[in-house]
């Protein structure tokens, strides 16, 4: 609050204003007004200078303590490179796995076809015929039957292995959204460093939307992060779409 003795210094200026007003002295009124303004400024300017200096030194201290230079200079850009590298590695690993899945497919088909053909030949031969029995030991027949069954099991395992590589898409989308955030953080830090160094800074250009743009796509659901009203799975989607179709 302004103290009484601070207000006292305006008394003479106000009296001059009143006197000029009463006397119809426009020039005197303007002069008294300017002189009041100057009196007020001489109180405000040192205060403004003090505030600016405090803000500048707080920013410089914050900049040093928060290691803004290091963060903006290489640590945050490095974080982005690391995340990009993770996406690249998982992409390569998923593709390598898919290569192997695709290579295994024909091998399994061959084992399945070969065992089925041999079993059919065994069934055509008379198993009670001693010559055939000598050519087809019981253990070989059991092995062929097992091979045929295992081929089918392996085929379903391979299909699951193929589907499991979908993790690369899901994790990649999540990491990509973090990379976008890191990009923005890097820009903000760069501006803070400039301000701390006393440079004049133009306004920040936002890259990310201030609210998530669901029309563009928000990426996969992440446990603990709410994206609003989300479905719980495929059954929920099917029910929602059926409801909409029924309501048409």
């Amino acid at each position, binding site marked *: 609050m302004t103290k009484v003795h601070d207000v006292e210094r305006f008394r003479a200026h106000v009296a001059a204003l009143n006197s000029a007003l009463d006397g119809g002295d426009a020039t005197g009124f303007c002069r008294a007004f300017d002189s009041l303004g100057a009196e007020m400024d001489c109180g405000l300017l040192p205060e403004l200078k003090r505030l600016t200096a405090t803000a500048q030194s707080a920013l410089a201290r914050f900049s040093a303590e928060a290691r803004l230079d290091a963060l903006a200079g290489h640590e945050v850009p490095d974080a982005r490179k690391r995340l990009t590298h993770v996406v690249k590695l998982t992409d390569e690993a998923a*593709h390598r796995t898919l290569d192997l899945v*695709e290579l295994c497919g024909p091998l399994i088909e061959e084992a399945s076809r070969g065992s089925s053909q041999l079993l059919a030949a065994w069934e055509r031969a008379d198993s009670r015929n001693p010559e055939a029995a000598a050519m087809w030991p019981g253990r070989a027949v059991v092995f062929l039957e097992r091979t045929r069954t295992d081929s089918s099991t392996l085929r379903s395992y391979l299909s699951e292995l193929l589907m499991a590589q979908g993790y690369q898409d899901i994790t990649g989308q999540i990491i990509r959204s973090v990379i976008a955030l890191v990009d923005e953080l890097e820009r903000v830090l760069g501006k803070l460093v400039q301000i701390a160094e006393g440079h004049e800074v133009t306004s920040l250009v936002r890259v990310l939307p201030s609210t998530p743009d669901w029309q563009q*796509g928000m990426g*996969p659901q992440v446990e603990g992060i709410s*994206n609003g*009203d989300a*479905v719980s799975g495929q059954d929920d989607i099917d029910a*929602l779409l059926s409801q909409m179709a029924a309501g048409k």
Partner: protein
Amino acid sequence: MSSNLKFLVVDDFSTMRRIVKNLLQELGYSDITEADDGNTALPLLKDGSFDILITDWNMPGMPGLDLLKAVRADAKLAKLPVLMLTAEAKREQIVEAAQAGVSGYVIKPFTAVTLKEKLDKILAARAAA
């Protein structure tokens, strides 16, 4: 099953395109073209005679929702079956996709059985039309 159908699979992640391609091949479909977002998909759709479009939603460039709207707005493509294969799970999004005319919506991660089921449904509706 008609195995000579022509598919366009759109996803910015090449692993996902490869997974979908493998699944389609297992189902007996071999004519499969790939694109990595709506901007590359749309000219292909306009030039080619695709029977079905399978698209992701969240892609840089043109997202799947915009691609769906562009398809429905094009007289030549308007009736093309479009299956959305995406991790986008907000109710609002699914309602928007349905209103934009999506033929089916499969949420990632998905199973081979779910993809087959939705494709069969779409193809049955296409045959009945």
